[in-house]
């Protein structure tokens, strides 16, 4: 349940929003929509994901518009929300990739510890998880980064990505298996190099 919805929501649906709230929301979109979208595109490196996240940011703003009208700095609130949503998106994408990696590697012992061990270490040491994920992904080649973005952030299907790259779907799946393993190797190296004291 969204916060305040029951307690203070002033009506849980838009029909219950006051005209003041609606006018305020229109102004917010006018002033900040393009800027937030611009920020999220750079942050996520993925236009489709940025558009989705921008929408989420403004849905939050609309849901809280009664409260936000009293906020001393609504622009600051929007960007903080955008930053949090982008962070969540990146973390969820990375976690999905880790789960797939774990699932396909249960029987393989290649001497490299489980990637989740490194993530756990990062979390235990209260290191900036976003920096860690970004450091790992920045080591990928441009093409591999694009593959990661298309599948994990943009949520394109494997078939669509294969079509885009002009290869068979099975071949593309194999590429992703290799990509995930490469990320695991990079993650281990990055954790040791920058994050694990």
């Amino acid at each position, binding site marked *: 349940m969204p*916060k305040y919805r029951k*307690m*203070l929501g002033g*009506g849980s649906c838009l029909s219950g929003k006051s005209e003041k709230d609606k006018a305020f929301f*229109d102004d917010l979109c006018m002033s900040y929509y393009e*800027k937030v979208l611009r920020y999220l595109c750079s942050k996520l490196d993925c236009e489709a994901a940025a558009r989705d996240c921008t929408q989420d940011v403004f849905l939050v703003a609309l849901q809280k518009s009664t409260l936000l009208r009293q906020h001393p700095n609504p622009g600051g609130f929007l960007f903080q929300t955008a930053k949090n949503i982008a962070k969540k998106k990146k973390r969820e994408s990375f976690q999905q990739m880790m789960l797939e990696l774990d699932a396909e590697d249960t029987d393989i012992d290649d001497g490299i510890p489980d990637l989740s061990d490194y993530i756990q270490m990062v979390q235990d040491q209260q290191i900036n998880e976003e920096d860690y994920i970004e450091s790992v992904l920045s080591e990928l080649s441009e093409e591999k980064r694009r593959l990661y973005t298309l599948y994990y952030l943009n949520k394109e299907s494997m078939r669509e990505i294969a079509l885009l790259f002009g290869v068979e779907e099975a071949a593309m799946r194999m590429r992703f298996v290799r990509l995930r393993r490469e990320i695991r190797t990079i993650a281990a190296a990055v954790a040791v190099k920058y994050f694990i004291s």
Partner: protein
Amino acid sequence: MKDKKQILKELDDAIDRADMNDIERGLNSLSVVEPNTIQAEDPGLFSTRVQKMYKEQCIMNKPRRALRISVVAAVIMAMGITVYAASTLNWFSFLSGDKFVTMRTTESMTEDEAKALVETNQNAVIPDDAVMETPEIQELSFDTVQQAEKELDMLLVLPASLPDMVLDNANAQIVGFGEGLETRTCWLNYSDDQGRLFGVTVVREIIQPGTPVTGYTTHDIDDGSLGSYKSKSGIEYTTLTESDDSGEMTAHIAYTMIGEYEYTLVFVGFEEDERQEIIDSADLSVYK
């Protein structure tokens, strides 16, 4: 010249400080290193689209409660919770994990049974034979509290020490579940020129005699904020806080349940002694 990574880092720092000037500067710097090729839609159209989507989401969310009530009924049977014929409404409120739960039931059960029910129901599989009622929902808004009271046929108690504030909106929702149950919720939201917000939420559950009802609602609350306050007239309130995502705005909430009513006071920007004075001045004897 700074690269994109450095600029984004500085931009994030500016966002953490909520410094709009630095945020603007960061966005301008980004445009230099990474020319913008995105086609942003018209902000007016975007606003309309988001509002439409929000409305649709609301509609989609509404049947959840009916679902929850149906599933709860099934879980009661599955768990073998002691059930007696009862006509009065019993209320429970407690923490379940990180959620604050308020439950109302016509069944006779202990608080432990209520907690177990909520816990089990979180993972409950909807039984094939569960009766799914589609609720009828009506949204209303009013110009005055008196108008709301009259049209909703419910008592809306305002604290006698209500601060000098303006009524921003008075909205209500009536949700009917078949013949036996109707929930009427009224939100009264006030604000003043100091940026303070005050809200009164009153929920009335109207249950026809003989209708077995068990339903609950969960709320996100701030960790460790659950407490209690006993008003001067002896009414026990559950107190808690809810903060927005940025953590900048915190609502202090006092909540109680009497008869067929749930009564909630919401404060943003009030000191503790002001809150207590207002709570003490709410005469809820009419709900008994």
